[in-house]
């Protein structure tokens, strides 16, 4: 059992001028193995901070994360990460990017090559192994990033706005790919997004975060991801239920934004 448990996680940044930013306040939740979680919230509410702490890049100033039986204390291959953009190694080819993790582990070369083939096929990039990554389109680059993360077989996959820089069509395709991978591999996936629709589609569970201080505001359990695995995305989006949840969340976020603006004006 490798569930992700957040236990009263707090993160307070000290700015160079000495000010304090309470980026996360008393964040507690449990993410069960195999769950698909999407996180939504206005800009600056601490989503990236949350993810960076789970990935182990930052240590929280209070509380702790547990994955399975141990506390998270640093980056590790058990937690894979997919970034928005620019995190591919452009000096390497597609295949070299994908097998980077295995090469770092000095894994068996033949085995590695076979796995790379397999993963390139899953993400729909067969035959692109020898292409330099800087020649790929944005959507293709994100597929490589996905494959690079997944080939390491992590227990938990963290994605920070992975589809944020893609056009609508590519984005839709990538959403199906994420759902497909989730279903086929049964991995725990935590995905941060700015798009309410995406959050609804790619979240079995959905956290809406609120800013200042960054905290979990509301949690939803949603049926759309499960449906989306084999169903038609467009139908789901057009359903009345989807529209209703979407409006609810949008209003919530709008209210938060307005509150922020109000606070800013008052200040």
């Amino acid at each position: 059992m490798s569930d992700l448990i957040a236990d009263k996680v707090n993160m307070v940044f000290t700015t160079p001028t000495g000010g304090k930013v309470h980026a996360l306040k008393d964040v507690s939740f449990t993410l069960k193995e195999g769950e698909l979680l999407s996180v939504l919230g206005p800009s600056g509410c601490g989503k990236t901070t949350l993810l960076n702490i789970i990935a182990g890049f930052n240590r929280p100033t209070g509380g702790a994360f547990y994955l399975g039986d141990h506390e998270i204390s640093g980056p590790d291959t058990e937690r894979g990460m997919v970034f928005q953009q620019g995190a591919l190694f452009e000096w390497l080819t597609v295949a070299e990017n994908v097998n980077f993790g295995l090469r770092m582990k000095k894994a068996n070369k033949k085995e590695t090559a076979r796995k790379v083939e397999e993963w390139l096929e899953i993400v729909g990039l067969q035959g692109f192994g020898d292409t330099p990554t800087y020649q790929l389109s944005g959507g293709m680059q994100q597929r490589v990033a996905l494959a690079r993360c997944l080939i390491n077989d992590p227990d938990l996959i963290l994605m920070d706005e992975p589809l944020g820089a893609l056009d609508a069509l590519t984005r839709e395709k990538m959403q199906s790919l994420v759902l497909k991978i989730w279903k086929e591999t049964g991995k725990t996936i935590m995905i941060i997004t700015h798009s309410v629709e995406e959050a609804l589609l790619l979240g079995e569970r959905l956290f809406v975060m609120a800013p200042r201080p960054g905290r979990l505001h509301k949690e939803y359990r949603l049926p759309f991801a499960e449906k989306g695995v084999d169903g038609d995305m467009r139908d789901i989006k057009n359903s009345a239920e989807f529209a209703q949840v979407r409006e609810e969340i949008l209003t919530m976020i709008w209210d938060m934004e307005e509150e922020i603006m109000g606070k800013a004006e008052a200040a």
Partner: protein
Amino acid sequence: MIIGILFIALLAAVIWSIFHGRKVLRTEKSDAVFGNPERALGGWHWVVAGVSSVMVLWLYFSWDAGRSYFPQAANEMCQVAKLNRSANPIRAAFPLDNRQLRGTQLLQRDGLQIALMNQRLAAAELLSEADRTELQAIINDMESAMNAQASPEFIDPTIEGQLNGIADRINQLSDKMADDAYPGPADPAQMEKALAQPGWGETNVEIPPLAETERGRKFDAASLEMEAIAKDFGKIRNNTGAIKAKLDALKERYEGFAIEGGADAAVVAERKALIRQIDKIYKRIDDGKIFPPSITQQVEDALITLDDTQKSQQGTLRIIDALAMPGGTIIAGNSACSEQGSGRWLPKPSDTWKTLTRLADPDIGFKDAPLLWYKMTPLAGIADYFVPDWVADLIPGEYPRHDDNGQIQMNLKGEVYNIATGNYPSPMIPVPMGHVWDSLLRVLAGLFFGILFGVPLGLAMGLSRFFKGFFDPLIELYRPIPPLAWAPLILTIFGIQDDGKIFLLFMVAFAIMVISARTGATGTHLSKIHAAHSLGASKGQIIRRVILPNSLPEILTGIRIAIGVCWGTLVAAEMLAGTTGIGFVENVARKQSDYEIIWTTIIIMGLLGLLFDVLMRWVINKTIPWRGKG
């Protein structure tokens, strides 16, 4: 001849490419975007225009083109220059090349001296009234003697006759020069000798001095006559007759002035100084170079006639001088003629090429070394160079000793020592050598060590607070110092051999490499490092697999810059000290004022610099094609 054709061809190329460029420009009219980067791609016709223009200018201003079209011109102009040179002593006395008559200048100068004397005398309070009156009278006499020289009233009739004689002789020379027959048939032996001279620029003599053509012979002969006239003119002095009487009386009077006698030392010294000054001015006046202008007018007129005649006799030569030899002319010296102006300091391309081929010939080279050649070297010698001798000392045991029979029993230690010293038979292999190679090797060695130490330190500084904080001030402190400022110190410490120069270049390259590697390392996108971390890379792996390749564009750009700076520093350092290298060659040539070798070395350096840069650009394109696309 080849140069002549080349010149026309290059000129045609310039004109053609300009017209072609204009035609292409017209087709580009549809492109209304001014800042369009497409336009920065240039066009090869503009390359042709640029290169050809430079070559045309070079050929023209070095007089190479002129020489090829008018190979005789220099020899003829040399004869003209000889005439001008021989006429100079007379001309200098008249306002022809100067503003004033020489007599006017002398009167002004000596008059000023006399005025100063008057002032001084008035201030000489030490002297008695009698002394002052006498000295004042002497000075007044001196002034009147000087002024008398300018007056036709006092002139000695013989002097007047001599001056008229000079004017006549100059006029006769003008008449002779206008005559086609002058100076009569050539002496065949003399002519043969003249025609056997090496041509213009073929030897160090540069310009053949003996007249080879009819026109040349005319000027040559005239110059000899003019020389005699000038000599006679120089002997004429306006200090005879009535002037002599005045001068003698003056001399007697001031020599009779009592310096010693009945006074203290200060007064004696004052008198002595004044009389010495009077004597000085007297000698100038006695020189007799002041004449009444009305008397010398004829000589002046004769000179003007001669100048007009010789100019018209030059004919086309004057046009050739103006057009084919721009920025200067040919002048005559004591023993030879030489080019003056751009023809002198801008070597002709054809001569430069000849010098280059001569220096490139391994049998000739420069100062005991070829420019770039190879020599067969035993392979063992190379091992000797790279393996330090003390390696053998590290082997346990003792070096072999000979036994009582004089036999030596070799052991391992001895064998290793032999290898380290290159003391064993080995095949010969060709190894490059020469000035260019030496320079190249120094630059590459300096660069190599600069990269070897600079890149790791730079990366460390980009990654660690300690390294950044500790080394940054040190490097920033020594980096802005011009490398050559270190040179005297380093050459003293390391000696003038390669070590010092390599260390100097190392310092230059090191700072550049540190800074570029640091920039590269700090420029690594954090998400790349995050990604590498969560893919399980260790610290070392992140440095080697992520930060180093990510810094590669900056590092390679740094190398490119470092090569350029090292190359410049090296040449300057080689000029300071050493016995080989391209900078050494230039320095020796500089001391010998051998402009052709100087230009040759400049061209070699330019080409090598270009080669390095093209090479680096190629390497950059090959190794970091992703640059700017990440």
